[in-house]
């Protein structure tokens, strides 16, 4: 509890854990839904062991009276149905000093890794209680218990369980009975600081994952064709998109590999249909050659990269911000394109939608850098604000005989040349990845090359990206610059700093390329020094800022590799140190 002095907490972090098949994820989702319908904000992430299926699992939740975008430094409650291999989550579920570790009496003492912090220990006969209910299961007993400890309303809990199991009456009855039994058993435990009353009703809020939000943003942006190849942690985005696309008149094709995905998407976009593919680092690497083709042939296309730990296969189930380099600079030759990053679960919607709009209007590829944390986190959020206006591709009109020949790659002032869509008479042309003149005919002349390079740079450089390029918050002569999933914990850290009298600005870059040095310099006006926060080993954002922004302030770096998200306390500690240095 972040607020131990008060009688009620404004934010509580709970981990449910147990061995494979114990129904931990089900219980976690029910708890999340109960909290949501009770009117709380909440966030849930998941973790599981190395086994493909059925290994130990943990559901990590934070329930709060305000929007939450990260886990805290310490958990208030770890509740497990058994301790088999649960110790493996030791690093992921640090217990706060005032925390409670709750297990089954019959399982013996909890692993030392959890209790070393001085957390209180409690045990109840979970399995025994479950056994007393025909068809009852310990996970539901635990759920009832935890709901009661948190002070979540009984009907919200009841409803969450019913919604999930509604179609399986045989399972519903015993589950509700186990839930009730768990709730009653809570009375025997020492008092636990309950949640403060909810900040309002659930109405108007959404319960969504970042992957779903990105998918919805794509559809809102006008995407109607997706080709993709499954890869963790992007698969859920594709699994959401597949039926959803169909219902809005689009289609998802499962490609044979990522080389095919990106080229199918390019083909569809050439045909006039806004197109997208989603993948993770290894797949993005395979798409680079063809992303260059999209640049040279000026074909709009969006690639969503749900980043995971690299290099190579890395750790597919963990988050890292390690693909900024490849997204910015992974194409051969000089190939200007767009790179964007959502900075929250809900923002994945607006940012993906914006990426589609920009790609379509600028006729070039856009890479959206989400990550495993944002993608797989499920959160209660306020209804996202409306996104960018829908895709607006500058389309060439049909021409009649006698009209001047169509110049697909005309050297316009804006750099954008109207694009003919197959089916349109009089403006047929061949799109080409070979360097070309204005009509698209291959050319090896230096002058044509230079002119087309200028054009392709100009259209991106001269576009007015408006206010969405970054989120700017706070005041003061210090600033922390970040992007993506580091934004959530940073926001919380800076709020805490402010409470302590330290004012620090937050700059979260949404548009990473083309770089907006003038805008960033303006945002940093009056800033004495800036700290660059990112989750990777080599400081990729720091290098990007140095190479492409020429900022007038000294930059320090706060970073760590993936596999362990930043939390607010950790950032706060560093910010305080750095501010004094």
């Amino acid at each position, binding site marked *: 509890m972040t607020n131990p002095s008060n009688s009620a907490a404004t934010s509580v972090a709970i981990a449910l854990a147990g061995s494979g098949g114990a129904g931990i994820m089900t219980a976690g989702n029910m708890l999340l839904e109960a909290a949501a319908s009770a009117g709380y904000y909440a966030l849930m992430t998941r973790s599981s062991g190395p086994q493909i299926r059925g290994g130990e699992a943990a559901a990590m939740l934070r329930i709060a009276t305000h929007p939450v975008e990260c886990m805290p430094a310490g958990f208030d409650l770890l509740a497990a149905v058994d301790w088999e291999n649960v110790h493996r989550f030791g690093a992921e579920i640090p217990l706060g000093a005032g925390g409670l570790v709750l297990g089954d009496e019959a399982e013996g003492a909890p692993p030392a890794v959890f209790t070393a912090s001085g957390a209180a220990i409690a045990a109840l006969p979970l399995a025994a209680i479950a056994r007393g209910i025909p068809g009852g299961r310990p996970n539901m007993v635990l759920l009832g218990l935890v709901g009661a400890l948190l002070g979540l309303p009984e009907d919200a809990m009841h409803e969450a369980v019913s919604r999930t199991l509604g179609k399986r009456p045989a399972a519903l009855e015993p589950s509700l009975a186990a839930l009730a039994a768990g709730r009653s058993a809570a009375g025997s435990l020492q008092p636990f600081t309950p949640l403060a009353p909810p900040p309002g009703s659930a109405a108007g809020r959404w319960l969504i994952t970042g992957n*779903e939000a990105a998918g919805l943003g794509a559809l809102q942006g006008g995407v109607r064709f997706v080709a993709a190849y499954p890869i963790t942690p992007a698969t859920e985005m594709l699994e959401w998109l597949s039926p*959803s696309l169909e*219902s809005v008149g689009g*289609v998802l094709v499962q490609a044979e590999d990522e080389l095919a*995905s990106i*080229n199918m998407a390019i083909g569809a976009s050439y045909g006039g249909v806004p197109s997208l593919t989603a993948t993770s680092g290894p797949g993005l690497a395979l798409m680079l050659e063809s992303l260059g083709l999209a640049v040279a042939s000026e074909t709009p296309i969006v690639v969503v990269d749900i980043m995971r730990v690299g290099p190579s296969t890395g750790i597919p189930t963990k988050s890292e911000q390690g693909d900024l380099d490849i997204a910015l600079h992974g194409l051969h030759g000089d190939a200007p394109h767009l790179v964007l990053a959502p900075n929250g679960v809900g923002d994945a919607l607006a940012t993906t939608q914006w990426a589609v709009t920009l790609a379509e209007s600028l006729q070039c590829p856009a890479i959206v850098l989400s990550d495993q944390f944002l993608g797989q986190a499920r959160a209660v959020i306020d209804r996202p604000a409306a996104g960018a206006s829908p895709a607006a591709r500058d389309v060439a009109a049909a021409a009649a005989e006698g009209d001047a020949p169509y110049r697909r790659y005309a050297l316009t002032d804006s750099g954008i040349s109207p694009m003919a869509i197959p089916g349109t008479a009089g403006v047929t042309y061949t799109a080409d990845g070979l360097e070309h003149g204005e009509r698209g005919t291959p050319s090896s002349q230096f002058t044509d090359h230079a002119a087309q390079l200028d054009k392709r740079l100009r259209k991106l450089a001269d576009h007015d990206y408006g206010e969405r390029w970054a989120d700017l918050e706070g005041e003061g002569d210090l600033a922390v610059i970040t992007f993506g999933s580091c934004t959530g914990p940073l926001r919380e850290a800076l709020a805490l700093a402010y409470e302590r009298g330290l004012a620090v600005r937050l700059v979260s870059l949404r548009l990473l390329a083309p770089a907006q040095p003038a805008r960033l310099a303006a945002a940093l006006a009056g800033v004495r020094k800036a700290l660059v926060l990112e989750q990777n080993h080599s400081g990729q954002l720091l290098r990007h800022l140095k190479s492409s922004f020429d900022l007038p302030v000294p930059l320090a770096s706060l970073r760590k590799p993936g596999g362990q998200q930043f939390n607010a306390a950790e950032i706060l500690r560093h910010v305080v140190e750095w501010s004094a240095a």
Partner: protein
Amino acid sequence: MIDMTLTPAHYKSDVKPVWCPGCGDFGVLNALAKALAKLALRPEDVAVVSGIGCSSRIPAYTSAYGFHGVHGRALAVGTGLKVARPDLTVVVTGGDGDGYSIGGNHFLHACRRNVDLTYIVMDNRVYGMTKGQPSPTTEADWTSKLMPQGTGLGEIKPMAIALAAGANFIARGFTGDPNGLADLIVSAVEHPGFSFVEVLSPCVTFRPEQREWKKMVRGHALAPAADSVEAATRIFADDGMNLGVLYAGTRRPFAPPIGRAQRTPTDLERRFAL
């Protein structure tokens, strides 16, 4: 409204081919133009897609829409285009290197996926564009700078692979017989699903001995087999010089519905609303 006065010349552009004089690909361009005229398709309703290679230069020489992509990915581009725009006639073109070497995986999966498009491979058993290296159809003993002793590898049989992977229409033509080839292309385009036309198209520069092909090919030697087992028996025993249609199957083309919206994206938001 279809304009019946379209002649083959209407399907050629004013871009001068970079091909060597005598290159077999000229004949394929002619046959394609003839076929499109016979099909009476408007140039703007046709898209010719290719990868990289001498043969892959063909799109710009037609008056249709063209897409000259990267090496080996033409079938993927064509697949995306046709699935997104089922109203277009999509013809994918390229060479043996583009299609069977770097592009082999897309070839396999295009056969399997059975999207309604036509794939024309100009097979000259060499990489022409990069100046004479062996391709997967090159004879084991053909020597070159890169492989001074020859590859020592057996040639693949593209038509057999197409059959094994599920292609719905499989034929072989010869550039020296543009009328026959045009007819094959017409049949291929008209046949529903994925149609594969292998074209013997000599590279006079790096494989001048292929000029002899005109004496070696056997016109109309292949007639559609009754089923894939019969087709397999024939094609595994084939010497590569028999022209005609090997197989014309009845598998349903892959054509997921597109453009039929039951909902708007905003409707989908409801799924997330609490």
